[in-house]
């Protein structure tokens, strides 16, 4: 059975996420700090604000752990703020610095109503027009790693992919069967498949 690590950033309950991964037939392990166990996949959950989540990640030694996992091509899924932390900074907490693996800043977007709450269709060559659940006031506007966009007031990046890492601005654990399949793909597809996919779609 595949074992999936869920990083507990202590920014909200993990019941839904844990259950969603469990329903896929994976065993989950929730950790507040790294240990020596081997995992088949890693999830950075989507709760809390940028600054709080970043300080939790940094103070508990996760940056080096995540870098090593990425270099070993272990599948990783970052959800909402759990994706945003891989960028450089965020309007939500301007004093906080992100992991800065990728170029770009999380911005307060020009949404008609804030926060954006609800189901929205994607514009994506990977996921077509799949409908998923968004809850956010901030997002990455554009990224060269983008594999999906959506539009609410303006177009923004709904998902990214780089090597074994998938990042989603929406909440797949709240997005019904579609979301469940996205979690499964993110945590099982090998890095080489993903790189090939990224090349095909030319992003």
């Amino acid at each position: 059975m595949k074992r999936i690590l869920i990083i507990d950033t202590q920014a909200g309950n993990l019941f839904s996420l844990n259950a969603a991964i469990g329903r896929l037939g994976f065993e989950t392990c929730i950790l507040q700090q790294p240990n020596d166990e081997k995992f088949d996949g890693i999830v950075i959950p989507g709760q809390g604000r940028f600054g709080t989540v970043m300080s939790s990640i940094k103070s508990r030694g996760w940056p080096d752990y995540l870098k090593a996992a990425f270099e070993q091509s272990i599948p990783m899924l970052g959800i909402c703020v759990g994706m945003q932390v891989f960028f450089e900074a965020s309007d939500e907490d301007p004093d906080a610095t992100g992991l800065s693996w990728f170029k770009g800043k999380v911005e307060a977007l020009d949404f008609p109503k804030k926060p954006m709450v609800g189901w929205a269709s994607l514009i994506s060559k990977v996921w077509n027009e799949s409908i998923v659940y968004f809850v956010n006031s901030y997002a990455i506007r554009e990224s060269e790693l983008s594999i999906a966009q959506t539009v609410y007031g303006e177009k923004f990046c709904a998902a990214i992919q780089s090597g074994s890492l998938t990042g989603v601005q929406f909440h797949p654990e709240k997005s019904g069967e579609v979301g469940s399949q996205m979690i499964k793909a993110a945590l099982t597809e090998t890095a080489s498949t993903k790189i090939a996919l990224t090349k095909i779609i030319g992003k």
Partner: protein
Amino acid sequence: MNNTKNCLLPRIVVCLDVDNGRVVKGTNFKQLRDMGDPVELAMAYEQQGADELVFLDISASNEKRPTALKLVTDIANHLSIPFTVGGGLKKLDDVKAFLDAGADKVALNTTAVLQPEIIDQTAKAYGSQCVVVAIDVNEEKDAHRLYINGGRKLIDRDFFSWTDEVASRGAGEILLTAMHKDGTGSGFDTALTKRISESVPVQVIASGGAKNEQHYLDAFNNGADACLAAGMFHSGDYTVGQVKQYLIDNGLSVRI
């Protein structure tokens, strides 16, 4: 796809009344073994295509609190769509307990009116997306009156300024129940929904009066971001899927 067209879709929210761990105000689903089981019923609505669920009066009294919290965790472990809990949340600790137990959002009504700072506090601690402020309004002689305590107590407070205030305090959504429509089957109050939806910068969930699929189309065409109903689905007269099909047939995009 047209880049300027918003991808955010209208939502259908189904409301379940829960007391002491059981669904009350009976439902009429023949396929369910136990129609009083909130988890089983919730999953049936998820299968029908409900976009979200609201569980009301789940927490009305302190004695029943442990049962209610266990139920919320049980629901979170089974549902893969968002859900809100409300009714009887009297202080920030109550709100925290239900969010920590697995609820995605809390609905605040009487408590928000009596202690409006709880909106700010919840939004600060958990984010605006967790805060649904439920507002009960009754249209009386050309005036819109604000009620609390489940619609039993009139409050001397301007209704329209209250809708503005909850948004500025950090509510993520407004659940707007038109008491003068509730139980009439004459449809949502589309004029009021439109007015609030256009003047207040948060999502508006219309509630009260729905009896058929046309009522949803009317509400969504008048600015409702979401529509909430209970009776017409619980009675088995309509499935959520049937209403959504009607909306699609009439040119709306919804999640199926």
